[in-house]
C-alpha cells in the first residue's frame, strides 16, 4: 500500500517537477482507453484510480476558487491544464477558449490553447513542445522556455499547496493596525497574503503567482538582478500615472536595503512590489531586476489594503510552514525575550539591562561600548523608570546574518516615563539568537 502510494506521488511529481507539464496526460489517456480493452495489471489500475481521485480533488479546489473569484485567471488556466491531463480535452478547450477571450494578454493561456488544438491530431508532450514550434529561432525557443517555467511554477505551487493549519515561521505577531502582511516565496513564485486575526495571528487569505529577479539567490549588490531576502516594509505607493508603463498599474517600494542589509554592506535600491507591463498579463518566473512583480489584476485586488509605512513584506527563498505548536513556541520565546529586556531596563539595574545587548550591537552613532557608557551615565540620574510596549509586531528573519545567527525583528510602540524624561516612539529591534538566548543586535526608530 505504501509503495503504491509512493508511486502515485512519483507519477504526479514527475508530471509536475519534471520537464513535461503534460506528461501525466499520456498516462491518463492510456488508462481511459484501456477501459474495456485488454486487462491491465491491478496495481496500475489502482494508481490510475488514485490519480483520478487526485485530479478530481484538485479540480474541485479550483472550482471553489473560481466560485469565489471568477476573475481568477490562474485558476482557469490550471483547470484547463488539469482537465487536459485527466483526458477531458474537450472541456479543457472550452475553459481555455473562454480564458483567452477574457485575458487576451495572458500569453501562457494562448500557448496552452494552441497545444490543446494541436493535441487533437498530433503528439504534444509538453507546453509548446511540438513539430509546429520546433522550427522556431533561438529567441522564440527561450520565450517558450520561460512560458513553460511559468506554467510549471503555477502548477507546482497549486499541487504542493500548504497543509492546513500551518503558519509561516516568518510572521509571528502582527500589530493591531496592520491589515495585511505579505510573504513571498521565491522558489515557488508565490505571494502569500495574510490578514491579522485575533491576537496578532496571521491568517492566510489568498496566494498569487509572482515574478522575481532574473537571477536566483539573495541580493547583495546593486544591479545583481536578484531579489533580496529579508523582513521588509512597504514604504510608499506610486500610482499608475507617475510610472513608466513597464511597472503596470502601481508600485509599492520596499525598504531595501534595511538596517541589517546596510550593516552587512549590501547595495542597490529600488526594490519594489509592482504591477506588470501593460502588454502582458503576467511575466515569466525569473524576469525582474530584483523587484517582486504581480499581474496587474492581482495587484489591483490587494493594493487597497497595503499600508505604506506599515505593511510587512517578508521575502524568502522558501517559506517555512510550521505546525502551530512549534510556531507558538517560537513566538512565546521571542515575546518573553522582549519582555525580559523591557523589565530589566525598567528595573534600573543597568548592568543586567546591558546583558541583553549583543557584543556587536549597533545603533545610530553607537556600538556596544558607547551605548553602554551612555546608558550607565543616564542611569545615574534615574530615580524611577516605566517602560511599556504596545502594538507589537514580531518577525523571524528568513535568513541568518553573516555570522550565521538566527535573526528576529520586533516593531513596537514604546512609552517611556521617568523622573526626568518622558517619551513615546515607534521602535525597531533586530535580535540575534546567541548562546544564552536572544540578544539585541540593533535598536532604532522605525
Amino acid at each position, binding site marked *: 500500500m505504501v509503495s503504491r502510494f509512493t508511486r502515485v506521488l512519483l507519477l504526479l511529481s514527475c508530471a509536475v517537477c519534471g520537464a513535461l507539464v503534460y506528461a501525466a496526460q499520456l498516462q491518463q489517456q492510456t488508462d481511459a482507453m484501456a477501459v474495456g480493452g*485488454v486487462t491491465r495489471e491491478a496495481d496500475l489500475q489502482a494508481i490510475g484510480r488514485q490519480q483520478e481521485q487526485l485530479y478530481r480533488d484538485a479540480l474541485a479546489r479550483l472550482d471553489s476558487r473560481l466560485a469565489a473569484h471568477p476573475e481568477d485567471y490562474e485558476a482557469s488556466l490550471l483547470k484547463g491544464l488539469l482537465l487536459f491531463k485527466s483526458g477531458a480535452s474537450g472541456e479543457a478547450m472550452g475553459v481555455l477558449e473562454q480564458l483567452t477571450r477574457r485575458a487576451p494578454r495572458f500569453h501562457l493561456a494562448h500557448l496552452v490553447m494552441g497545444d490543446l488544438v494541436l493535441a487533437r491530431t498530433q503528439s504534444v508532450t509538453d507546453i509548446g513542445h511540438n513539430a509546429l514550434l520546433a522550427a522556431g529561432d533561438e529567441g522564440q525557443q527561450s520565450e517558450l522556455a520561460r512560458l513553460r517555467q511559468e506554467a510549471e511554477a503555477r502548477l507546482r505551487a497549486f499541487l504542493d499547496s500548504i497543509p492546513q493549519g500551518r503558519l509561516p515561521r516568518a510572521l509571528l505577531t502582527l500589530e493591531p493596525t496592520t491589515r495585511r502582511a505579505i510573504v513571498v516565496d521565491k522558489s515557488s513564485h508565490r505571494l502569500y497574503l495574510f490578514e491579522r486575526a485575533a491576537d496578532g495571528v496571521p491568517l492566510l487569505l489568498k496566494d498569487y503567482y509572482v515574478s522575481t529577479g532574473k537571477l536566483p539567490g539573495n541580493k547583495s549588490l546593486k544591479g545583481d538582478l536578484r531579489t533580496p531576502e529579508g523582513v521588509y516594509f512597504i514604504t510608499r505607493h506610486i500610482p499608475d*500615472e507617475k510610472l513608466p508603463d513597464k511597472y503596470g498599474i502601481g508600485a509599492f517600494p520596499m525598504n531595501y536595503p534595511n538596517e541589517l542589509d546596510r550593516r552587512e554592506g549590501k547595495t542597490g535600491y529600488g526594490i519594489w512590489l509592482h504591477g506588470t507591463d501593460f502588454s502582458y498579463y503576467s511575466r515569466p518566473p525569473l524576469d525582474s531586476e530584483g523587484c517582486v512583480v504581480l499581474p496587474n489584476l492581482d495587484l489591483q485586488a490587494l493594493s487597497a489594503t497595503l499600508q505604506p509605512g506599515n505593511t510587512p513584506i517578508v521575502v524568502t527563498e522558501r517559506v517555512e510552514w510550521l505546525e502551530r505548536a512549534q510556531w507558538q513556541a517560537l513566538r512565546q520565546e521571542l515575546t518573553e525575550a522582549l519582555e525580559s529586556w523591557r523589565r530589566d531596563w525598567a528595573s534600573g539595574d543597568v548592568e543586567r539591562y546591558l546583558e541583553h545587548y549583543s557584543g556587536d550591537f549597533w545603533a545610530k552613532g553607537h556600538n556596544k561600548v558607547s551605548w553602554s557608557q551612555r546608558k550607565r551615565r543616564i542611569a545615574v540620574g534615574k530615580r524611577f523608570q516605566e517602560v511599556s510596549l504596545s502594538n507589537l509586531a514580531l518577525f523571524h528573519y528568513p535568513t541568518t546574518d553573516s555570522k550565521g545567527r538566527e535573526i528576529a525583528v520586533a516593531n513596537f510602540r514604546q512609552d517611556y516615563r521617568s523622573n526626568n524624561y518622558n517619551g513615546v516612539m515607534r521602535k525597531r529591534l533586530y535580535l540575534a539568537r546567541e548562546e544564552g538566548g536572544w540578544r539585541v543586535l540593533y535598536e532604532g526608530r522605525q
Partner: protein
Amino acid sequence: MRTWSKPVLLGGLLIASLAAAEPIDTVRAQLSDGDYSAALATLGALPAARQNSVAAMLLHAEALAGAGERAAAEARLRQLISDHPERPEGYNNLASLLVGQGRLEEARSLLEQALRSNEPYATVYDNLLRINEQIARRSYARALVLKQEKPLQLQALTYTEQGDTQVSGTGGQAEPVVTAAIEAEAAPRAPSTTPDVSLPLENLVYEPPAAAAAPPVAVAVEPALPPPPPAAPPETAASDGAAATVASPAESALSEEAEAALHQALTGWAAAWSAQDVERYLASYSDGYSPGNGVSHARWRKQRRARLTRPEWIRVALEDIELQPAGEGAVLVTCIQRYTASNYRDVSRKQLILRIHSGQWLIHSEQTLEMLS
C-alpha cells in the same frame, strides 16, 4: 440504374449472410460470453477459405486477445492489414490492441493509416490537420512572436453526378479560409496581418461505383497538383495587407527632401518631449492616434500629459534612425530611444510608422520592440 441496383445488392448480401450465419454468429455469442477457447475452436473448424474472410480474421484476433494471446492477436491483425489494406477495421482494432499495451505512438500511426486507406478520407483528414495547425498557429502567434504566417490552403473534393470524370476549373473563389491575422490589441508583439489568399482547389474525380461490390465510400481518385497560388506570396507584404494592390511606391526609395523632413519631424517630436511641451508633443501624432490595448485617444492624451509633466525633467535622444518606405506613403522608422528623466531612465528600440498629412509627417503607430536596459 440506381433504382434497381439496391434490391439486387441487398438480395446478394442476404444470401451470403444466410449461408454464413451459423458459425460466425456462434463465435460472436461465444465471445460475448467470454468463452474465448470455444470461439477459437469454432473458428478453427471453419473451412480454410472462410477462415481468411475479413469477418473471421477480426473475430479470431478478438478471441486471441481475449485469451491473453496478444502476440498472436497482433499477428492476425497484421495479416488482415496486409491482405486487405483498403479495409479500416484491421488498423483500427490493432490500434486498440496496442493502446492496451501503452503503445500509443504505434496506435496513432495505425489510425492514420486507416484514414489514409481511403483517399477521400485521407484528403479530409489532411485538411483537418491543416485547419488544426492553423488554429494552433493563431494561438501561438498570440503567445509568441511567430514568423511569417503561411495562409492556409485546403485541398478540395468535388463530386459530379455525371458518370465520368472531370476536373473542374481552378476553383478560384477568393474565399479567405483561415489567415493568421492577429488583432493588434490581443498580441502587441505579434506579426503584422497577412493578406487573404484565394484557395487553390485540388480536384478529385468521382466515378460511379460498380453495381454490386461498392464499399460505402469507394471512390476512384485522381489527385491533381494544386495550381500555384494566384496572388503574390504574403511574405513580401511588409506591414499593411491592403497595400498589396498598390504597384510599388513601397519599393521606391525616399527622396532626399522626404528624408530630411522625416528627420526633422522625429527630432521635433523628441525635442517637444524633452521640453515637456505637451501640445507640441501630442501634435506629432495623427488625429485619433491610439497606442492599442483598447486605450482610447482621449485616455492616451491624458496619460501622456500626466507622464510628460510629472518628472522634473526629461531628456529623449534618438539614435540609429532607419527609414524604410512601407507602402501607401507610410514610412517605417526604427531607432534607439534613450529616455532619461528625473525619476527613471531606459533605453529601448522603437518602431514608428509615420504618414504625411497636409505636408506634415505624423506618427500613426509607436511600438517598443525591445528594452535595451
